[in-house]
């Protein structure tokens, strides 16, 4: 060891090494800048629909990015991730309607409920191999959706949670005020993204990448694959649940569609659009899908066909998401410039 260390000191560092420290500060700075920009938006543009758009982006963005923690980072293709979006919306809505606790309490309590449910479902699912995992998560999604539909006395069945969700002010924040709701959504989005970024760039994040690449090998270097998969399954569910809560606050209600499999499908679409190899891919995908949704539905009633073609273009044409494409393109240009 000593001879080696001596050798290291003498040798000039011809190859750059990974350094962890500056990354974290950089991410926090980017997050603060993004939040500041979003917070200034209402002062520049008075348009309410733009703010609505950003709120929806926050809800779906948290959901889609959390799905990427499973799909892109761990290689767990979940077709049922939307159940936690629905669970968040319903859990939060019901708690506000039935108990009248302050919003932060309902928020945390809903996360706890999500954690327990995701823990149970995850414990069953993460043992399964690819396709079985995908379909069993889908099955649980349908189970939750059916429960919501049939438990009319609690959930209002196919009518959803009606009568509005009470939004009592707390700590000077009044979420029935559109601007307050907007700022709160942006804050949740930025904090959520920052937390997920931290997970992705932590040693645990690299454990997930190893499991994605080669789970067998991971277990032969001493990683408890099942435990790691379950952990990320539950964590991702929490962020999806937070997205659902933003949605419930935004529409002041919760509807069975929030827990339907199409939400999971949209999550997968978003990830395909934006790309799963970059952290912000799903966020870009979210913005793309929502813009597409809004514009196409305005233009034609056959928006499903148009969306389908766009997805096909990315899936078959580019064979990657937009952000994957951009990152590769930049890398290629840099190479050319360098060489």
């Amino acid at each position, binding site marked *: *060891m000593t001879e*080696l*260390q001596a*050798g*290291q000191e003498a040798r000039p560092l*011809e*190859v*750059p*090494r*990974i350094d*962890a*420290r500056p*990354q*974290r500060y950089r991410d926090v700075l980017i997050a603060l800048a993004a939040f500041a920009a979003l917070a200034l938006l209402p002062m520049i543009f008075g348009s309410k629909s733009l703010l609505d758009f950003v709120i929806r982006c926050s809800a779906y963005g948290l959901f889609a990015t959390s799905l990427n923690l499973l799909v892109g980072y761990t290689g767990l293709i979940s077709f049922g991730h939307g159940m936690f979006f629905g669970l968040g919306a319903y859990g939060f809505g019901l708690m506000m309607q039935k108990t009248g606790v302050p919003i932060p309490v309902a928020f945390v309590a809903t996360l706890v409920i999500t954690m327990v449910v995701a823990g149970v479902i995850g414990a069953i699912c993460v043992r399964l191999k690819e396709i079985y995992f995908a379909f069993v998560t889908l099955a649980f999604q349908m189970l939750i959706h059916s429960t919501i539909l049939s438990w009319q006395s609690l959930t209002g069945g196919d009518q959803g949670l009606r009568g509005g969700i009470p939004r009592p002010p707390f700590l000077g924040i009044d979420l029935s005020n559109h601007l307050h709701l907007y700022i709160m959504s942006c804050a949740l989005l930025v904090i959520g993204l920052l937390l997920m970024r*931290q*997970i992705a*760039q*932590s*040693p*645990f*994040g*690299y*454990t997930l*990448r*190893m499991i*994605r*690449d*080669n789970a*067998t*090998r*991971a*277990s*032969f*270097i*001493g*990683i*408890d694959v099942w*435990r*790691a998969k379950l*952990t990320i399954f539950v964590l991702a569910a929490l962020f999806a649940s937070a997205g659902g809560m933003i949605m419930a606050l935004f529409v002041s209600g919760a509807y069975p569609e929030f827990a339907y499999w199409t939400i999971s499908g949209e999550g997968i679409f978003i990830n395909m659009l934006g790309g799963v190899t970059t952290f912000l891919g799903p966020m870009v995908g979210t913005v793309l899908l929502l813009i597409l949704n809004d514009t196409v539905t305005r233009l034609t009633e056959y928006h499903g066909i148009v969306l389908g073609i766009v997805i096909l273009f990315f899936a078959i044409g580019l064979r990657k998401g937009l952000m994957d494409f951009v990152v590769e393109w930049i890398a290629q240009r840099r190479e050319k410039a360098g060489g």
Partner: protein
Amino acid sequence: MLEIRGLSKSFGGVKATDNVSLDFVDGSLTAVIGPNGAGKSTFFNLITGALKPDAGQILLNGVDMAGKMPPEIVRHGIGRAFQVASIFPSLTVEETMLATVCADQRRAGVMHRRFPLAETRDRAEHAMELLGLANKRNRTAATLSHGDQKLLDIALALVLDPKVLLLDEPTAGMGTEERWRMIDKVRELWERQKITVVFIEHDMDIVFKIAPEIVVLCYGRILATGTPDAIRRNEAVIEAYLGSEHHAGAVA
């Protein structure tokens, strides 16, 4: 000391490992040879926990590993490399090493800090130096040459500081020249690290040249054990496996 006692494993009616008992002394270098289907890989899979034995004990310094799961067996100090390099294609060499040390330090679940952890650097660096991969640290594993991928696979096992290192055909799929380079590397590692190394090898020239101890498996059973000379002269081995080209007379 790794002691195998009455290890058995059947698939259907086929006895892939049949009542195998062997001792691997600390710091020994042993080659496991045998014709295709002799149960060499099964033997490794049993020791490392990839397969559960039907019967028998695997005692590492007196602790029985039989029936334990791979992560636990690895933590007890039995590392392995695979016949087909088993690596993490999208990670760079350096990331692979750093993350593996992380796992070994039981920090694979750490979320509040950024990767890589400072305390994993020295060991990762050491392993990369040992295997000659330090100047390829920023290459993703998928872009490495076949030989380097095999080295990375071995580095993955070695960085965990195993007491016993099992190498399943370290020279599989290599050309003659590359084979010798690889096997010199294996021998060098064995000498420097002073660990117990057991490797499977098909090339008899290599086996007889570098392995002080040889185990011959055939139909899941031990046909013979001993030094290269003893194995060369063993009638049963010659008949079952070696044929005339490695016959004592011919070689000597």
